[in-house]
């Protein structure tokens, strides 16, 4: 890698500062916190959810996210009867602007080969066991559409703020390999009942 890099730099094809800028972007700026904000907005604003489901690219752009590997977005929403999970069996297509670069397991032959034929078995390897009655829908990203899952909002978060909700959304729940656990009764630090602050959120 070092040799290839130095060949390309020596020949003037590549600006080393541009390499650093790309790495910095995906290491520090573009990652699953973006998707978590989309999900939290969808949970708290029904009109936003509607726009997301109708035209995800435009609705995600409202929050300032878009671009490479997220040019054409589709959002699918988990319900109590349907669970969505996303894969790219042919390579590693993934919605970079909202989730960042894909985790290693997403790119692995084990995941890519099996989630289409044995989705429940794969989900179990993530500790996710669905009710047998729940339909599992697998989305294989074979073209230039990129998929984001809206996980179910955990019970116990009814009066949480959008910011608090975004903090509990995991990357894997937005790929569909994880279900967000119910939240235990609120404690001081999340919502301070002594101040009566809970009612304000």
């Amino acid at each position, binding site marked *: *890698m*070092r*040799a*290839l*890099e*130095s*060949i*390309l730099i*020596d*020949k*003037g*094809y*590549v*600006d080393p*500062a*541009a*390499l*650093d*800028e*790309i*790495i910095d*972007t995906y*290491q520090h700026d*573009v990652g699953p916190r973006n998707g978590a904000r989309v999900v939290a907005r969808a949970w708290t604003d029904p009109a936003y959810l509607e726009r997301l489901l109708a035209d995800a690219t435009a609705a995600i752009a409202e929050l300032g996210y*878009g*671009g*490479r*590997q*997220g*040019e*054409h977005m589709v959002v699918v929403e988990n319900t109590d009867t349907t669970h969505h999970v996303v894969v790219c*069996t*042919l390579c*590693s297509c993934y919605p970079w602007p909202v989730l960042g*670069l894909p*985790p*290693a397991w997403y790119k*692995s*032959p*084990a995941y*890519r*080969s*099996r989630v*289409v*034929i*044995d989705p429940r078995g*794969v989900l179990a*390897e993530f500790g996710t066991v669905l009710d047998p009655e729940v*339909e599992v*829908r*697998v*989305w*294989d*990203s*074979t*073209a*230039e*559409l990129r998929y984001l899952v809206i996980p179910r909002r955990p019970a116990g978060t009814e009066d949480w703020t959008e910011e608090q909700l975004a903090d509990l959304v995991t990357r*894997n729940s937005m790929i569909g*390999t994880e279900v967000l656990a119910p939240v235990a009764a609120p404690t001081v630090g999340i919502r301070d009942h002594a101040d009566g602050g809970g009612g304000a959120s």
Partner: protein
Amino acid sequence: MNGPQDLGGQMGFGPVAPEPETDEPIFHEPWEARALALTLTAGALGHWNIDVSRHARESLPPAVYYGSSYYEIWTRGLERLLVDAGLVGDDELASGSALHPAAATARPPLAAAQVRPSLAAGSPYTRPTSTPPRFGAGQRVRTINDHPTGHTRLPRYARGVEGTVERVHGCFVFPDTNAGGDPDPQWCYTVTFAASDLWGRSADPRSTVSIDAFEPYLVPAS
């Protein structure tokens, strides 16, 4: 092509071993970050498109593909693309140093200041068309049974199978021809299959698989 990349439904790769999400680094080794960045900056020179680069990776011999980590596959693919474009010589790759003058590039090298704007802009793959879509949402279709030796995005597990058009997405660059440099835009549809139609009696009874299929992959269901 029926290459090593076409993994859906293959067996023997073992369980998925996810790292805990909160502990997983973006890059596991510093060179992986360089591989990603080199691939993006070299791509910006304008000598190949996304389908050409996918085809370069899937054209690796299966033993090499399966024996390589993800970013090793990217690096081997990038080396092939650079040589095929005449930007780097095999002798340079072998020696690990630049031996020849630089070739003229289709576009100037990506400057650091252009990185964030160009990533934020992306490159949309939709194209205008005057042809109406052949299929509509709700329509039953069958995928073709075809085994092209070149690039295709119709996975083997979904060939010759009946499904339902779920969504019409618009007209997109067609990967099968774009890998040869001809975008030949085609309508793209989400097609949903019952798991039992893909996998037979071993299928999960309450599961579906959807792919995004280009119009040439589809015929009306009989």
